[in-house]
């Protein structure tokens, strides 16, 4: 466009037209561009929730680091949990470009005002659960996240590119844990199967409610934040994991799973959305433990944050004086 636009601020109407133009052209919105308030709010909610999920997601796996069955598994699990922390930080940074402060986001998480993915409110009682989280939970997350790399908001898309690159190791290591257990002793095989039985349905529910009951989806798709509907992504995930479960020698706890020649997809059974809503409302198995633990870690770290800030202030003062 070689228009000779004078350099004064655009009117709101012109700004909106320009925003719509950028979205329609499949280009990206950047932090200093004008954007509708609702777009900004939707992104802040989605990206901060996503960041909180990464941070809370460190807990169910972190509790296995000391008990992982070998030095190799411990090292892998530590690397993975460290990645989750990193992913949380990439996403917090992306959210901050929209004008919300880091401290505010942390406060919203701890006070229970902000949400995070319900999946992390389930317990991890067995080692096989670390396998199931990698294979099913991270697998579902990847299905969700790959299209987000093309989200219309630049900083979000860029954070997702980095995250997706790192996430694929998470899924593979989980698959490997389950494969080894499945091919091990009968007790190990049973442990793997029992774990998959517990994680299958919650993993499918990670994609969110069915399209008909997902009120915000249409707007998010129009804004090109979301690229595929909840049900489409869920179907894609089922189509991936059915053949994978066969390689594992494990079954999925859903009798309705069968190949549908006509649709070219696997059919699967109804999910218990009442359970999903209960967990979402804070009545899941581990909601209070997760938040309490996060709050405690934040409180325990307060003196470190203050001391580091005080040290930096003193160094600054000395540098100014000299």
């Amino acid at each position, binding site marked *: 466009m070689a228009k*000779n*636009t004078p350099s004064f601020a655009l009117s709101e109407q012109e700004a909106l037209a320009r925003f719509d133009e950028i979205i329609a052209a499949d280009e990206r919105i950047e932090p200093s561009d004008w954007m509708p308030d609702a777009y900004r709010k939707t992104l802040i909610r989605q990206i901060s929730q996503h960041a909180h999920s990464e941070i809370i997601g460190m807990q169910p796996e972190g509790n296995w680091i000391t008990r992982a069955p070998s030095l190799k598994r411990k090292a892998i699990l530590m*690397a993975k949990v460290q990645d989750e922390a990193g992913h949380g930080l990439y996403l917090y940074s992306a959210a*901050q*470009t929209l004008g919300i402060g880091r401290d505010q986001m942390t406060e919203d998480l701890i006070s229970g005002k902000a949400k995070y993915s319900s999946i992390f409110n389930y317990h991890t009682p067995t080692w096989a659960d670390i396998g199931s989280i990698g294979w099913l939970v991270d697998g579902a997350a990847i299905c969700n996240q790959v299209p987000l790399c093309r989200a219309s908001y630049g900083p979000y898309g860029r954070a997702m590119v980095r995250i997706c690159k790192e996430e694929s190791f998470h899924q593979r290591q989980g698959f490997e844990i389950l494969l080894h257990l499945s091919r091990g002793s009968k007790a190990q095989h049973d442990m793997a199967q029992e774990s998959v039985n517990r994680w299958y349905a919650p993993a499918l529910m990670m994609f969110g409610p069915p399209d008909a009951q997902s009120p915000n989806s249409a707007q998010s798709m129009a804004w090109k934040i979301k690229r595929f509907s909840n049900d489409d992504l869920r179907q894609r995930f089922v189509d991936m994991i059915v053949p994978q479960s066969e390689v594992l020698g494990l079954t999925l706890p859903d009798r309705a799973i069968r190949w549908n020649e006509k649709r070219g997809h696997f059919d699967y059974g109804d999910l218990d959305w009442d359970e999903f809503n209960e967990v979402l409302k804070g009545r899941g198995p581990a909601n209070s433990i997760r938040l309490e633990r996060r709050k405690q870690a934040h409180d325990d770290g307060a003196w470190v944050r203050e001391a580091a800030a005080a040290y*930096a202030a003193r160094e600054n003062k000395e540098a100014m004086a000299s």
Partner: protein
Amino acid sequence: MSSPGGTEHDTWPLWEVFVRASRGLSHLHAGSLHAPDAELALRNARDLYTRRNEGVSIWVVPSSEITTSDPDEKDAFFESPKGKRYRHASYYTEAEGVKHL
């Protein structure tokens, strides 16, 4: 004119991180992070942005020190090079087929 990010009153200020992937390449913007001072910003940047050998050198800059052009002025501000195709080698077609030119 504005600065990216650094408008918040968080406990720790925001820093922008630039990483050189290998010798011979420029430092490229990798992302941002919070840290109380430059030294910790560097250490945090190493942990956050180079967990898989992504870099051999890191720069950190306080976000508040970066000045950006105004996005609303985009057309006017970047007007000058437009319509000046003669600044590109592809503009000169008559040498087509001549070797080493």
